[in-house]
Structure formats: structure tokens, C-alpha cells
């Protein structure tokens, strides 16, 4: 029986990053994976969707070439080629993880893993043992009882990124990041898209101003948005589906080729031996402490399978924290109030910290500033004037409570706010940080200036 310092169950951005860091720290490490290396993120999540969205973005440029003084004829997409490109990118990334595993001398054990008491892992009948077993089995698309996925007319995200034929009409249920990214992609490709959202606002976790702006942008792009609505029933028809949607004004029946269910995730905690070992879960999440230890010594859990936002960068950070602690390093616990969230639709959304509503509810007196890209020189030059940066400060001490961005490229701009908050900046330092001209990032400085009544370009 092979013996390791660390065995990681699952090779998503939680698992494989954990394994690399463990190996860097001198721990003998193995990772167990039943499918492709890289987990949902690389194979069925972050990466392939961003590849699809890049094709969509370029297609938008083709469609609007004239706005830039350019000429094209017969601009068209080849849907199969777009999907194929996305799969190619995902495969490339998965191969990259394979390379990293080898380079870091991490054993990859292929197969279905199950934890066992006595710090053992069974993989398809073969047993391995380790001093530390880290569960990183991730999650899958959640199914609603009213919306069972048959993989043909009602599909989840995996199918949605590998369809062989582009649907003419599509209903997307749920307007979280995943839902609107697909809505944005298919809309760009020419599919007629309707979004059905149960909450009053789309992208409901975002600041209300962002939600509003995003809804406007989506509608302008031709997407039908139904908020305060829920899909009650889906019936198969000859050519597709008929969905009964409950709205505030009563029931509506929509026809479509396909329904994409994007209503969240369900953790992979079944049949991996949790009960045998006696690990405690709470409403489908494994319970862990600040160092990702479960209730049973030697067993840890990180990533989507635990509480906290189901995001790749969170899974990775949790894994790194977990093994650095195991290796005896002095580590700080992750600050869950400072985790950026991004949506890569058109326009992009990026945010960190509290929304204005949350900050008010927390009892803060606020200084709020907002700078629209319509007033940005760079946005004018680039033809990307949709959106804004909104910043929220505590009026008393100047703490940067929240930053909310919507517009072109903002997913690469939010890092400034995350670092600034990490370093406990006040608005003053951001304002006096000379941002390069002309960039979209100037909008951060200007939004702060707006909060302090010193905005220049408004």
C-alpha cells in the first residue's frame, strides 16, 4: 500500500493547486481524479466558457466593424468551430495540469476515490494511505425538481458548452454569473435568448446599480429579461419545449428549442465515504474550520465542497492555506469579505466587498462615488462607453467597503480594489495614486474622487 504525506481527492483548481503547493513544501503528494485533470474549472467551467465568450466578443467586433472605419462582408460564425475551439483550449489546459503534476512529482491516481477510516483512500479497490487527506470533489449543476435535466431539451452547463447544433431559441433559467454568461454568448451567436430570474434583479448578488445597468445592456443587446419569474413546468413539444413561467402578472407560456438550467450547484459529497469516516456535513457542504480541517483529524475539505463562494480562485486559495498550515507555516486565515467575483458577459462585471445595500444594513454611514465610462477618454476612444465604477467608503474612517464595476475589461481591473482593501487603504491613497492616462482604470480614481466631492471629469 502506497503511503503519502498528502492525498488530494479531486483535481479541480482546488485539488491540483493544493497538490502543487504541498509538493513545493516537501510533502509527498498524490491526487485522485476520476475524469480529466483540472476539474470543472478547466474542463467545464471557467476556461471553456471564457473561450466561447472571446469568440462572441470577436464576433461583435465583426458585426460592428464599420464603427471602427473597417469593412467586412458576410461576417458569420461557424458554431461548430467556436465550440471546437473552446474544447481545444480546455484540453490544452488539462494537458498543462498533467505537465505540472509531473514536474512537481505528484502521483496522479486515476479512478473513483473514496475516503476510509484510518486515513485511507480507496480508488477502485486499491488502497492508499496518507497523513493528510484533502477532499476537493467539487460540485455539479443543481437540478430543480420542477426542472429535471434530460440533457436534450433541458440541459445543464456541460451540455450548454458542447451543443452540436446552435439553438434558435433558448430559455436560460437563473441569472447568476453562469446563466448570464451563456445568455450573452448565445445571444451574440444569434440565438433568441430569454432569461428567467426568480429574484427582482438579474445578477442578484451584485450591487443594485450594477444589476440595473446590466439588465439595460442585456435588453439593448436583444435579450428578453423576465425577473420576479420562475419556470413552473417544462413540456416537450415536437420541435423543442414549452415552458410555463410564473410572473408577477400571471402565467406565460414560452416556446424554445432548449432550456438551460443555471440555478446553482450541488456538491459532490455522495458516495465518497464521508459517512464511513464520520465527517459532518451541513446542508450538503462539508463543515470545516479556518484551516479546512473537518471534525475528523487528518481529513480536510476545500473548494466547492465547503461553504463560501463557489469560485475557482477561492478553491485554490483554500487549498494553499490548508497545506501551508499542514506544513507548519505561519498562515493567515482567508478573509472571505475580500474575495472578488467576476462575470465575463458583455459587459463584464467585477466586484469585491459590500454592496451599497449591505453596507447600509451593516450600519455604516457611507460616502458613495460613481464614475461612468461614458465620461472616460479611453472608453470613448475604444468605443466601450457602457458601464461605470462605483465605490463605497465608510464616511467615518474612510475604509473602502466595496467596489463594483461594470464595463469592458473590468474583470482585469478589480485586482486594484482587492489589493487596496487588503492593505487597508482609505479613499485618500487611491485618489492620490496616479493612474495612467488614458485607461479604463482611471475610472477607479475618479469614482473615489466623486465620493469625496473632487471628481474632475463629471
Amino acid at each position: 500500500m502506497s503511503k503519502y504525506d498528502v492525498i488530494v481527492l479531486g483535481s479541480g483548481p482546488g485539488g491540483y493547486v493544493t497538490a502543487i503547493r504541498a509538493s513545493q513544501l516537501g510533502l509527498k503528494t498524490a491526487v485522485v481524479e476520476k475524469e480529466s485533470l483540472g476539474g470543472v474549472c478547466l474542463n467545464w467551467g471557467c476556461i471553456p466558457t471564457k473561450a466561447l465568450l472571446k469568440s462572441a466578443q470577436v464576433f461583435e467586433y465583426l458585426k460592428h466593424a464599420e464603427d471602427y472605419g473597417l469593412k467586412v462582408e458576410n461576417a458569420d460564425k461557424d458554431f461548430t468551430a467556436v465550440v471546437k475551439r473552446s474544447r481545444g483550449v480546455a484540453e490544452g489546459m488539462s494537458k498543462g495540469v498533467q505537465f505540472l503534476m509531473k514536474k512537481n512529482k505528484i502521483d496522479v491516481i486515476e479512478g473513483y476515490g473514496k475516503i476510509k477510516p484510518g486515513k485511507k483512500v480507496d480508488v477502485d479497490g486499491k488502497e492508499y494511505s496518507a497523513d493528510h487527506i484533502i477532499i476537493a470533489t467539487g460540485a455539479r449543476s443543481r437540478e430543480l425538481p420542477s426542472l429535471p435535466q434530460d440533457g436534450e431539451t433541458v440541459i445543464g452547463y456541460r451540455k450548454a458548452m458542447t451543443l452540436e447544433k446552435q439553438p434558435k431559441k433558448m430559455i436560460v433559467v437563473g441569472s447568476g454569473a453562469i446563466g448570464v454568461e451563456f445568455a450573452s454568448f448565445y445571444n451574440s451567436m444569434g440565438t433568441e435568448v430569454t432569461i428567467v430570474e426568480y429574484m427582482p434583479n438579474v445578477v442578484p448578488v451584485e450591487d443594485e446599480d450594477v444589476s440595473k445597468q446590466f439588465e439595460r445592456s442585456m435588453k439593448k443587446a436583444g435579450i428578453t429579461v423576465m425577473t420576479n419569474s420562475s419556470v413552473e413546468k417544462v413540456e416537450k413539444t415536437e420541435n423543442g419545449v414549452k415552458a410555463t413561467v410564473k410572473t408577477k402578472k400571471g402565467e406565460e407560456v414560452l416556446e424554445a428549442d432548449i432550456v438551460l438550467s443555471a440555478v446553482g450547484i450541488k456538491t459532490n459529497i455522495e458516495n465518497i465515504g464521508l459517512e464511513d469516516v464520520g465527517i459532518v456535513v451541513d446542508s450538503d457542504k462539508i463543515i470545516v474550520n479556518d484551516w479546512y480541517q473537518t471534525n475528523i483529524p487528518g481529513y480536510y475539505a476545500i473548494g466547492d465542497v465547503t461553504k463560501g463562494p463557489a469560485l475557482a480562485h477561492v478553491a485554490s486559495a483554500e487549498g494553499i492555506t490548508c497545506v501551508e498550515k499542514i506544513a507548519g507555516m505561519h498562515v493567515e486565515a482567508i478573509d472571505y469579505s475580500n474575495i472578488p467575483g467576476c462575470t465575463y458577459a458583455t459587459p463584464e462585471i467585477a466586484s469585491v466587498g459590500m454592496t451599497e445595500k449591505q453596507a447600509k444594513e451593516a450600519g455604516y454611514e457611507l460616502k458613495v462615488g460613481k464614475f461612468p465610462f461614458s465620461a472616460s477618454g479611453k472608453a470613448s476612444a475604444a468605443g466601450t462607453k457602457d458601464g461605470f465604477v462605483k465605490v463605497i467608503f465608510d464616511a467615518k474612517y474612510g475604509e473602502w467597503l466595496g467596489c463594483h464595476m461594470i464595463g469592458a475589461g473590468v474583470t482585469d481591473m478589480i485586482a486594484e480594489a482587492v489589493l487596496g482593501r487588503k492593505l487597508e487603504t482609505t479613499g485618500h491613497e487611491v485618489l492620490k495614486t496616479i493612474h495612467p492616462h488614458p485607461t479604463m482604470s482611471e475610472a477607479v480614481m475618479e469614482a473615489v474622487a466623486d465620493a469625496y466631492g473632487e471628481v474632475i471629469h463629471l
Partner: protein
Amino acid sequence: NGNLFISPLIKSIAQQQHISYEELARIPGTGKDGRLRKSDLMQYIEEGRPY
């Protein structure tokens, strides 16, 4: 200088130069609201830690 904010860099320098929090608090800061900056601390060290 009671309301002292210590930037990561100040902390790093202070640790390696064995400068205590109390000693840091005595150094006049030139930043906004008296915030202690790297330049203040380096000058203080160059001057032979007068406070």
C-alpha cells in the same frame, strides 16, 4: 502618534531592525494624517534612531 498605521513595508523594516511598536510610534510621520512612511523610517534609522 497614537493612531499608528503600520504598512507592510514598515513592519518588515521594523522587524529586521528590531524596532518596537512603541519606538515606531515616536517617529514623526509625514504622510496623510501623520502616517508613517518608509522614507520617515529610513531617515530615522540613518539618523541613528534619535527617539
